[in-house]
């Protein structure tokens, strides 16, 4: 059961990765990286359940925090540099 859920999460990660590579605009890529990060948090929690060690969940918690901060930092960078031009970047 856990293995099947793990494979589904990996499939979802592959789909998000494909959108990060394809996505015509930059915002598609940021969205895909955000989704990949959330799926990685789920994947790490799943590995913690598979191996049986509960302390791997600390890494999942850390990554959930860092994913959020990273995405907001990217968006602030774009907000500041978008004020000087009005083209949606690629």
């Amino acid at each position, binding site marked *: 059961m856990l293995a099947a859920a*793990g494979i589904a999460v*990996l499939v979802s*990660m*592959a789909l998000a*990765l494909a959108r*990060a*590579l394809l996505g015509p605009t*930059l915002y598609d*890529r*940021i969205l895909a*990286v955000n989704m*990949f*990060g959330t799926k*990685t948090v789920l*994947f*790490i929690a799943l*590995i913690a359940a598979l*191996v049986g*060690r509960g*302390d*791997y969940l*600390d*890494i999942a918690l*850390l*990554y959930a925090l*860092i*994913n959020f*901060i*990273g995405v907001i*930092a*990217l968006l602030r*960078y*774009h907000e*500041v*540099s978008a004020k000087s031009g009005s083209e949606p*970047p*690629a």
Partner: protein
Amino acid sequence: MIDILLLLFLAITAIAIVRSRDTVTAVMLAGLSSLISACLFLLLDAADVAFTEAAVGAGISTLLMLSALHAVAPTKTRPRKVAWPALAVALLCGGLLAYGTLDLPPFAAPDNPVHQHVANHYLEQTNKEIGVPNVVTAVLASYRGFDTLGEIVVVFTAGLAVLLLIGRRRQEDQDDDAK
């Protein structure tokens, strides 16, 4: 099986970083590859390394590179032609290295040559000689203390140099504003 899939993701991300035409995209994809590396470390049972990789590679490194990109204009490059001789040399070297790994002993087998000499001494004598229950800490801080001292000196020097450079740039900006 999962290892192979994650390594495949890592390879695809690395190719995408090289072929991306925008620096911000490259920074984001580098964060993504750090994330996949953290998953791989976790699968290899190294929790503290995965912790550090997730925090530093996907968090701090991305933020630092973004704030560095702030100071320069955004760049977009034209698509370049593939340098075929360089690609051939890289593939040849990688292939030879992969061929060399076929001769390695099985991973983490207890009778590997590397586990026979000093590792046994550390594992048996740590409690008596050092008294710290965690063997990794005992090796890093006591048996190999000079190596750790060298690392700290290097990191401290690098941090000091960066602070001096940024301090000088901020001084110049203030002088320019005051004029």
